[in-house]
């Protein structure tokens, strides 16, 4: 049997774009879960995850290295950047819900800097002013021709979650948008 270490390669490893006012770079590996939870199960699932599922539209919640993003009235995206396994934590919830491990379906791009919102607006039609899309806001939306999940992590820092197979397109689109920044 062959010996050796298997190392994970992320689709955008080593890529970078940007200038003085913005940087576009891939996020690290993360575990992700697509969650569908009916209202009566929200409390128990929140308990198992260790993060309160936000029920306000467009809200996110964080505890340690784990974040839960509201995507729809009964739908959330869990992102775990630490060592824990959200799927394992959900096992004992004892209530009705659906969880699908989508860790490798998505990859993420971090867009940071004073021009971050402008760069995203090159392909995202949303109003990204702090009044309508404040820090911690999240949403499924579009970037150019693809669907993304956008999450504002700070005034000038966004996380773009996109499907792995679309990640070249997403990165190149954002790279083009950084020209002159």
């Amino acid at each position, binding site marked *: 049997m062959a010996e050796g270490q298997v190392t994970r390669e992320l689709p955008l490893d080593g890529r970078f774009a940007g200038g003085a006012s913005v940087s576009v770079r891939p996020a690290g590996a993360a575990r992700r879960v697509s969650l569908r939870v009916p209202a009566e199960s929200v409390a128990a699932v929140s308990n198992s995850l260790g993060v309160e599922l936000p029920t306000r*539209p467009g809200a996110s919640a964080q505890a340690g290295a784990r974040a839960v993003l509201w995507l*729809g*009235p009964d739908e959330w995206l869990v992102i775990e950047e630490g060592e824990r396994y959200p799927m394992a934590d959900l096992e004992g919830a004892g209530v009705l819900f659906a969880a699908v491990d989508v860790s490798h379906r998505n990859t993420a791009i971090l867009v940071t800097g004073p021009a971050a919102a402008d760069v995203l607006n090159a392909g995202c039609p*949303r109003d990204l002013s702090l009044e309508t899309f404040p820090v911690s806001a999240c949403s*499924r*939306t*579009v970037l150019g021709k693809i669907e993304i999940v956008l999450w504002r992590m700070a005034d000038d820092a966004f996380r773009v979650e996109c499907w792995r197979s679309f990640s070249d397109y997403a990165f190149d689109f954002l790279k083009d948008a950084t020209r002159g920044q």
Partner: protein
Amino acid sequence: MLLIRCPYCEEERPELEFRHAGEAHIARPENIADISDEEFAQYFFYRDNPKGMAFERWRHMHGCGRFFNAVRHTVTDKFVMTYKAGEPKPVLEEPQEGQSAP
């Protein structure tokens, strides 16, 4: 670009996030196996296509994913209101088909 209010996201969103999904408030006949071909055709194929206020289903496809209903004026393209799927068809005070647009 049109801004459409999603009743589930509770805010106006750009039209690129949405898909039109046909006429609203069409109930599937409960005795579908018994009705005539003509009655089935009426239910399945025929649509009102009004010039004026139209009741439509829309889906917030690249948002919360939900279907909802909207009242849109087919001449001005103006969205008069949106409401959640399953809520009753609203009674409009605005002038109806054949009258001047608001």
